[in-house]
């Protein structure tokens, strides 16, 4: 791997005094998509939140050559990390336009790119974000991260709870995003992972248990079954339409 954009060393994290991530170490490549995989509840989301300082954590996090684990969340984000949280977390009482305006940090936000990727959001600019469908809310969440000239996106379960057709749209948008900025992707839909990811990091019981090539991992049915509790044959049957990176 070339120089990683993100290095996590011995990261441990707690929520309400309970250990949810334990001594996790991994690197994220400076290009394309690295998938962070694991069964439900193993600490994937907590790892992302720990990197951002949204929950109590210990360990070292280096981003783009700088140690960031002592910094406050807004400072970490200002260094160039875009965050697309699980469950979208859009501001439901603000309009779509206000949601996007709030996210703009750069002097020249990439409004044209966002308008091109998500034309529906332009049409719904004045609509309250809470009245959007789940897929549209995910677009808002992705658009917020893409507006700024980030050096890394942390994207947490972007297809969770979405209809298959919307999953395909989100995957296509992520592919487009990944051509601009590297992505650390938490994702349960293994077909989306297969389409997008070059590398995988697998967590089990709060620890990293496998790091490697995404295709090789997904082709190894025994490892997938052991670490993720699903079979690749099963996931193939729910394959979303192919996306072109």
């Amino acid at each position: 791997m070339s120089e990683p954009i993100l290095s996590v060393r011995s990261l441990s994290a707690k929520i309400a005094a309970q250990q949810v991530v334990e001594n996790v170490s991994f690197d994220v490549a400076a290009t394309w998509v690295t998938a962070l995989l694991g069964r439900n509840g193993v600490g994937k989301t907590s790892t992302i939140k720990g990197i951002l300082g949204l929950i109590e954590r210990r360990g070292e996090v280096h981003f783009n050559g700088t140690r960031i684990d002592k910094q406050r969340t807004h400072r970490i984000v200002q260094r160039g990390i875009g965050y697309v949280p699980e469950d979208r977390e859009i501001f439901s009482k603000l309009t779509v336009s206000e949601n996007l305006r709030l996210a703009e940090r750069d002097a020249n936000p990439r409004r044209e790119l966002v308008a091109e990727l998500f034309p529906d959001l332009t049409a719904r600019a004045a609509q309250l974000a809470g009245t959007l469908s789940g897929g549209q809310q995910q677009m808002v969440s992705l658009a917020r991260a893409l507006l700024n000239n980030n050096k890394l996106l942390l994207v947490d379960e972007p297809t969770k709870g979405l209809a298959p057709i919307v999953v395909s749209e989100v995957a296509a948008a992520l592919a487009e995003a990944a051509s601009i900025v590297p992505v650390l992707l938490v994702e349960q839909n293994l077909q989306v992972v297969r389409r997008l990811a070059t590398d995988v990091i697998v967590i089990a019981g709060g620890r990293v248990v496998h790091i490697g090539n995404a295709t090789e991992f997904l082709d190894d049915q025994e490892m997938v079954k052991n670490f993720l509790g699903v079979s690749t044959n099963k996931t193939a049957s729910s394959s979303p339409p192919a996306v072109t990176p």
Partner: protein
Amino acid sequence: MSTIVLLLITGLGLGALYFLIASGLSLIYGLMGVLNFAHGSFLTLGAYAGWELARRLGADNWGTFIASLVLGAIVGAVFAAATEFFLIRKLYERHIEQVLVTVGLALASVALFDGIWGVDPIYVAGPAWLGGTTEILGASVPNNRFILILAAVLILLAIVAFLKYTRFGLIIRAGVENRSMVTALGIDVRRAFTVVFAIGGAAAGFGGVLSASYYGFVSPAIGGSLLIFAFIVTVIGGLGSLAGAAIASALVAVLQQFANFYLGGTGDFVVVLLLAVVLLVRPRGLLGSAVA
């Protein structure tokens, strides 16, 4: 009819005072989850600052009165911002400590005001028109009620415009909904906290000068006595809701006036009864968000 008109307008005037305190309380709770028991002290200090200016410049002209309002607002804003910066900032998410600190500050500041200005009420003067009355439908309504109502409406519009049209307002509205996500967008939400405290303090300090005009005096306990009703108004309106605070302020104060007149001085009791009914029937208040 004239009695009803008088009670109604006097009630709205008192409601305006409640709103000037409750608006800050509501914004502060909505964004930060802080129940600020020191908020009455911002009002009291604003009232004394306004009186100090008026007695030096001559209290009987409009220029001094307006300057007193501005000074009261500035002093309230600075005191509130300093409170947030030096005392509250280290205690976010530590609610018991917040209550202890703000109650302590309220008690200490009243003692300080006692020491500086004495425990007795200081009677204040103002422009002659404020001390007069205006005939409306047979009722002689004290003129200062109109100023109070006008001021509260202007403050409400100014806060709404600030929240709707400025970036800080956008951050505050988003922060009320999901503070952690605002931070995750790269925004230092603590600056918004200080701004909200300053806005709340400015409204309270402004209200302090107006309360001196309403009651005709200023005393160290004036903020604390109004704060109790402002808290009731904030809860009835819905914690965190500015519109709820405005509606509840008018409702509570008018009810209080009518109960005092028609039900043998039971205004305070009726207000507490209303609070109990709201808490039982609609715990989130008139316009508050449902608790997740």
